[in-house]
């Protein structure tokens, strides 16, 4: 009896304020899509970090012939210099930081270069002499790059030390800023959603003042009087949240899985399953918004 009655009251309320209900759904949809997009960006960043930081190497490029650097004044790195560097890498200062060292000769560099850029016309013009031999150093912890770099830089025979992480850090910075902006927009939209839900509940309460007046008079409990209004807000917000989950899922499906993932195969990208993992969060935010709005409104407009 109670449940059926409350449900029919909710139905009446939602229909009576149809345009408001639709606007609540749209605003929560848009705001939660922003929240979800920010979440997906962060997931993407952490996926890339996991994937790339594991692969990141510090590369110590050895002097080629004709380098302008002071430490390369003696021309191409000699056997002794290479042995010195190897000894240095084995020293107690660096050894604990290093997981693995791999020496790439010029011939190997050339081979992998040609393999990577196979079929490119310009790549064929590069000769083996143009490339550098290098130490590829894999660190135990990619964050400790600076220590290794400081020791190796400027040593005779080493032209330059490069950390691949630097390349990614710019990308991560861009992605992080993008997610900050998205979160900012999301916050504004969420504020709009709260205000709209508040207004909707208030209108709904006003348009049913006669009913609620009688309910109070005959001794209906506060919960019973307020529940339909709260559920109205919650239902609208939940529909908005579901729409945003669907929107994000479709977005990931068509933009990433079906398109970007086909074009860019070398990075791990967010997937539909990530959207589904975010879904409970989005629904939770929606319900929280509705709950806050209802509590504020109903306390103000529907006293015993």
């Amino acid at each position, binding site marked *: 009896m109670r449940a059926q009655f409350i449900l029919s009251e909710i139905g009446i309320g939602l229909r009576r304020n149809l345009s408001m209900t639709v606007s609540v759904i749209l605003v929560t949809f848009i705001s939660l899509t922003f929240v979800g997009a920010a979440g997906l960006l962060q997931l993407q960043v952490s996926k890339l970090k996991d994937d790339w930081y594991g692969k990141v190497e510090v590369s110590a490029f050895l002097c080629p012939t004709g380098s302008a650097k002071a430490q390369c004044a003696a021309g191409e790195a000699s056997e002794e210099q290479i042995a010195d560097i190897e000894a240095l890498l084995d020293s107690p200062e660096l050894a604990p930081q290093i997981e693995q060292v791999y020496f790439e000769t010029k011939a190997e560099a050339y081979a992998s270069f040609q393999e990577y850029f196979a079929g490119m016309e310009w790549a064929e013009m590069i000769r083996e002499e143009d490339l550098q031999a290098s130490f590829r150093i894999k660190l135990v912890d990619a964050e400790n790059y600076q220590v290794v770099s400081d020791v190796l830089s400027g040593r005779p025979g080493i032209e330059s030390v490069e950390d691949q992480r630097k390349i990614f850090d710019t990308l991560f910075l861009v992605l992080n800023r993008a997610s900050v902006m998205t979160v900012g927009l999301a916050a504004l939209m969420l504020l709009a959603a709260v205000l709209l839900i508040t207004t909707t509940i208030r209108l709904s309460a006003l348009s049913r003042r006669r*009913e609620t007046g009688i309910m109070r008079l005959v001794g209906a409990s506060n919960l019973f*009087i307020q529940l339909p209004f709260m559920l109205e807000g919650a239902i609208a917000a939940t529909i908005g949240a579901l729409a945003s989950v669907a929107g994000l899922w479709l977005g990931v499906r068509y933009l990433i899985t079906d398109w970007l993932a086909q074009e860019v195969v070398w990075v791990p990208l967010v997937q539909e399953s990530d959207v589904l993992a975010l879904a409970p969060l989005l629904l939770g935010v929606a319900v929280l918004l509705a709950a806050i709005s209802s509590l504020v409104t109903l306390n103000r407009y529907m006293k015993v």
Partner: protein
Amino acid sequence: MIRLENVTKVYARGARPAVDAVSMEIERGEFVFLVGASGSGKSTLLRLMLREERPTSGKILVAGKDLSTLSNWKVPALRRQIGAVFQDFRLLPNKTVFENVAFALQVIGKPRHHIATVVPDTLEMVGLGGKEKRRPHELSGGEQQRVAIARAFVNRPPILLCDEPTGNLDPTTSLGIMRLLDRINRTGTTVVMATHDDEIVDQMRKRVLELATGELIRDQHRGVYGSTR
């Protein structure tokens, strides 16, 4: 059943009290008229008994509950013990007669089978048998007030508060409403009725409490409306 001890109600600070140091006791099963000119404090007194207002000072006991210490969440339980009828009926225009009366039971969570038996009985009792499917605008004023009384009484409250229930009705119709209230009173329900209607008061010969500018100036058993009108 209802006891007021030195009750004062001041709406705005510094204003004249709407109810000024009123004490009264109404026994179970009594029929009491509250009379007095407009603004004498009749409605305020009823609102205080319903705990729609809290007294500025003094103590009010209704159905064994001390309203000055009653917490908010217990107010619904109090109101289930009190039926209320108003001059303007306060019916829901988009619900039928049956639905209007059933509404009062639905919103306090009564089971459907209970509603299905109690509502027709109550409608029969107030003389609206056969008009269950009408809507309020299809009824006369007297019939609308009967619906309102049915709604107030359907849960069989021990107390019925009526604020000028005949205020919008012609004398003949009013008489019918009074007969109905008298019948309800005979079932053991305490009835408190605020009214302007001297004819009715003089005819019924019930206890009369007269208010003037918020003060209780007369408490007369088998009383008449009086001369202060």
